[in-house]
């Protein structure tokens, strides 16, 4: 028989197609038996109906409306209370999700020798920037920190091994490590939200748990309109409107992490 390469390929092709069709019912049967019991509808997991969604969550902080440390205090307090952030007296154990700093520290490289009064003396509210290109996520060896589809950079504390690579990678110092069990240092526990344990890194989560219930982040609620929060991808959103109307700056923009927190100065 003239057995050529051509003949062999023909047979091989036909039998491959045949096997593909032939095994399909078997595969279907396996897939069906996977969803246990089979007779009732399989349970499913969905987003809440009221959940706020966006393509890219972002924040605009109007620093003109937050003049003094006393203005920032209730915002920080609101955040730390709702997330069970411990209060450590020892500075090197400090856990912070949102905190205040001065202009020179918040915006190095943007500080001129002579600054206007506002920038020079005003305290600036800083938090995790939920970067579009987050270096912490690249550094994490366990994917404990990850970027969600809507731009939120979140922590999965279950997976965190406490290596602190993310802290080294974050150029904004937005991450804190639990050197001690935080529980004894939480002034007032919010029972609706978990605490953390010793040996994990934590940071601002843009209140993902509140967004899921259709609420705005705690600092935004407490800010009396000084902070706007919304979808940066939607040209009609409040944040985009503010960005159109005001000159804004971002922290350490030259590093290319593309922060999602904008400041009106």
């Amino acid at each position: 028989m003239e057995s050529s390469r051509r003949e062999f390929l023909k047979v091989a092709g036909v039998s491959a197609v045949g096997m593909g069709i032939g095994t399909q019912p078997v595969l279907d049967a396996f897939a069906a038996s996977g969803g246990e019991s089979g007779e009732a509808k399989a349970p499913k997991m969905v987003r809440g109906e009221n959940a706020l969604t966006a393509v890219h969550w972002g924040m605009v902080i109007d620093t003109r409306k937050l003049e003094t440390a006393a203005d920032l205090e209730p915002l920080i307090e609101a955040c730390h209370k709702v997330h069970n952030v411990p209060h450590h007296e020892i500075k090197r154990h400090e856990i912070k999700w949102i905190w205040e700093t001065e202009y020179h520290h918040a915006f190095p490289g943007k500080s001129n020798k002579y600054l206007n009064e506002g920038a020079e003396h005003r305290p600036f509210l800083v938090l995790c920037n939920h970067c579009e290109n987050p270096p912490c996520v690249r550094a994490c060896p366990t994917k404990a920190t990850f970027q969600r589809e809507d731009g939120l950079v979140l922590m999965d504390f279950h997976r965190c091994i406490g290596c602190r690579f993310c802290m080294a990678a974050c150029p904004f110092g937005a991450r804190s490590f639990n050197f001690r069990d935080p529980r004894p240092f939480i002034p007032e526990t919010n029972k609706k939200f978990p605490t953390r344990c010793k040996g994990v890194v934590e940071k601002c989560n843009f209140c993902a748990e509140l967004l899921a219930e259709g609420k705005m982040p705690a600092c935004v609620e407490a800010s009396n309109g000084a902070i706007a929060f919304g979808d940066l991808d939607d040209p009609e959103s409040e944040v985009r409107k503010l960005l159109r109307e005001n000159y804004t700056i971002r922290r350490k923009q030259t590093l290319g992490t593309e922060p999602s927190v904008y400041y009106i100065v």
Partner: protein
Amino acid sequence: MSKKIYNKDQVIAGLVIFIALVSFPFWYNLGKAAPAPKVELTKQAKEAKFCVRPTEYMKAEHMQLLDVWRDTVAREGKRIYVNEAGKRFTMSLSNTCLDCHSNKAEFCDRCHNYASVDPYCYDCHIDNPKEKK
């Protein structure tokens, strides 16, 4: 011809003592097996009759269910669980499971202690959401 055992008496005595010692835990604890723990349901749990999934499934598979819940909530942001009956639950250990089973000591801990498992869920998740403290 049978082989001779040197120091026969000592060897036999030694063997008897050895076997007695090794088997000591078995015959000492004979008939004293700890009874399987009885879990107590709260009034709320009794009235509900049906957990998130059937009781048998929950007994055997609650840890797998919770594992799926934690990944889905923490990583995918989906927080609502719709069971076979179409009933909706917020996927939260503290706010859903322990809301109904608010007696952790008589419900969770009894079995966990019996099975000698020590889940570290409660290092972070509040274990007494209803208790005022």
